């Protein structure tokens, strides 16, 4: 799954206002690259479900990275699915808060 919050450099809990300004700040190239991003994030209902799924992918990424869970089955190709949800990619919130 794509990590749109990372692309927008936003936290998952970002307000609509923050979201709008980040969407407006996207360059033409970025918009062309992320063809689904704008539609998903601008539609309230879709964005809500995306936000909920985003948390789950983050949780799954954390679990998959746990050394004690390295022998977990991967019949759903989780390694590929959570690739953009590496916790490293989600340090924005942490960095933005200046810590």
């Amino acid at each position, binding site marked *: *799954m*794509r990590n*749109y919050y990372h692309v927008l450099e936003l936290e998952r809990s970002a307000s609509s206002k923050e979201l709008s300004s980040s969407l407006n700040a996207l360059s033409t190239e970025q918009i062309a690259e992320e*063809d*689904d991003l704008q*539609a*998903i994030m601008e539609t309230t*209902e*879709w964005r*809500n*479900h*995306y936000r*909920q*799924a985003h*948390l*789950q*992918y*983050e*949780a*799954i*990424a*954390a*679990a*998959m*990275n*746990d*050394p*004690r*869970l*390295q*022998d*977990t*089955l*991967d*019949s*759903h190709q*989780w*390694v590929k*699915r*959570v*690739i953009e949800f*590496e*916790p*490293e*990619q*989600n*340090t924005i*919130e*942490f960095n933005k808060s200046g*810590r």
Partner: protein
Amino acid sequence: MRPLYLSPTLATMLLSLSSIFALPLAAQSTSLDQLPSATQEEIGRVCLPVQYREGAGAYRNCVQTEISLRNDNALSGKNGPTDLARLSFDDKYAVQQACARAGGQSSSDYQSCVTTQINELSAVEQPKLDLISEDELYVVQQSCFEAQSKQGAASYRRCLNGEVNSLLAIPAADTSDLNMLKKNALQLRCSSNTSSAVQYRQCVASEFESIAGQAPSFLPVSTATAVTANVPQSNNGQQNSSVVNNTVEEVAEKKQVPTEPVVAAINELPRQEPTMALPRNISPPGTQQSQLDEVASTATDVSVDTESQSNSTDNILLAQNTSADATTDVLASDIEVSENAGSDNAGAEIAGLENNDATNTRIISRPELVETLNKQAQSIAQGIEVEAVDGVAESTSTGGTDLLSKASGLWQKFFNSLSSLDSTGWLIIAGILALPALLLGLFSFTRRLKKPTAIAATSNPDLASRIEPGLQTRKLRHEHQAASLFDDDTPSAQADDDHDAITRIATKSERPVVSDASAMVETQSASENKASENKASESKASENKASENKAAPNNQQHWANLSGWQSAFGGWLERLPEADRTSACIEFLVYWVAYGDDRFEPELKKRLFTATDLSSHDEIKRWVLKQDVFAFSDVIVWMRQNASQHQLDQSISLIWALLVTENNVTPVQNTLIRYLSDAFNIGKENIESRFEKAFGHSLPNMPRPDSLAWWAKQDDVQVQNWNARAIATRPDNEQMIARLGLPTTFNEAQVINAFRRSARRCHPDRFTALGDRERALAEQRFIKFEEARDKLLGVSV
């Protein structure tokens, strides 16, 4: 109902048309409001959709066509739709299903089909549905659902008759003294384990004691059969087996017939010795059937006042027992039931004589009854149906068509072979039964021995090495948040906020909790650690980022510290009593899935984040609401290391029993169910197959809420149903529909099917490896499903 208005122009046209087609004037001039209200409603049902689709003109034409059709049928003496309207809901459904392919409802083919169906139906005896309980009625209807939907009304009714007659030959346990919870438990246990009404009734009798804590008493079959005496009797005392008219109205009329005239008529019959009330197949003395009874020569006759007011009951019993078609469908399980009966008055109980009103009865002692029933059950098992007519027993081969009898015969043989086992035989059986448990235990033991080394063999080392620095950063953030919420829980609560977060990674003492579980993972070799560190360092070097450079040395510390919990939740968990930890983890997962869909009140979140003195359940909720992904990870680890495979399997069953609605799996639920199936070693194929079995439809593909193409495939109504908060604001009826996962338009059968599947998912037997709390949650959920079923079916709750 909208009245038909005929404009002068239209009237003229109709008159012209009538003259052209030579239709009787009366047929054309009939207006809708002159018809009986039932017919008006029927025409409305047919034509209102036409009005919505095609407008007023089409509606008017439709009404006129329907009126003409009825007039035609009336003139030709054919059955029309009005006859259909007089059928019961179930019969009508069967007729409509059978004729669905014949054409539109107004077509002559359809009407002809309806007429044929109704004629066939009228030749079949009305099933005695009012003699069985509501639960049994469900099972009977379910058993005959295929006949109802595919084979026509007559087949459906014959199926019902077969099921009901088989059922009435078996004594029913009296559940009237049980409270609602015990009744539900009994119903749940038996509805999930049985496929026929007979099995259901047998199950109720056999499971009664385990749930109620006492042996069951049995309702006398005589009470049920007495009602059938309302059917006119012939002079020789045999029940009139002529065709019974089958309309709803007639059934209702029959119910209103007082019993006194019938009793009087029966009193005029040749007087015979009173017979025992149950079972029906034990005939009065003098018949060949009764000779079976004579085998049990010690039977005790108890003479009671025959002039009491209970004469009528006795007489009706007499009439029933002398009827020509009193078949002997005693099944093997009756014997089993008798074994469960109490020792003091077991004979009376099994014979259904524990009835205050039954005064003129003959009691047969329990061993004799068991023997008699045994013989009859064996006869049934051989495909023989014994008819007791005037003392002459006739045996008629059923040709092997009675599957139920065969099944009960097989059960009887099995039961007999078990009874004949000696101690060696029992030891062998116990050994065979224990073998899987021993193998499972051995497998579990060896798996645990292997687990520490398995951890070191990372399945996705590349991912691990690349995300490790970020992981630590985020982990610190979560730990810090946790510490601020649970000051007394974590040493890191004392950490300086201004301290560089990255450097805190290196400080082991700042970890929220170092678990005792470290012993398990610390067994990994130093060389494996080093290999991982090197890989992580290489990956970081290639990415060339300042933060990662900072994290590199600290990461080494982390790898030396793998054994600890990822979150403060792990430490909190360890402080719980050992017996409560698995339950706490399951509770965490349930809330994680529920709150993942925002299924919580904002007020709850506010309260939990401000309160200081919380119960353990509230503390779990708070962790979930914090969205602590590392706590999620710790829960998975705990479950894998401490729960049995059975508990892991049942945890997933519990999650979907409590949270997932039929035809409405949310993306979050779908994703988590799929992930947990992998984390709990169940796998994709297994979880999909289990899901389909539980819900009656397949688990949708992995959701992709980041993709427009995926959204384009989603149904708007379905998407709206994912929003639990929105559903909670809908009218009560719509909430019930959503609870059972029904479409906006549905029929009774759909409600019943959805309820049965939902109830099965909540069955306590599915959570035997879990605790009382989990089973109680499932039971509460079952009650919710029951409420939805009752409201949607219009049953008073």
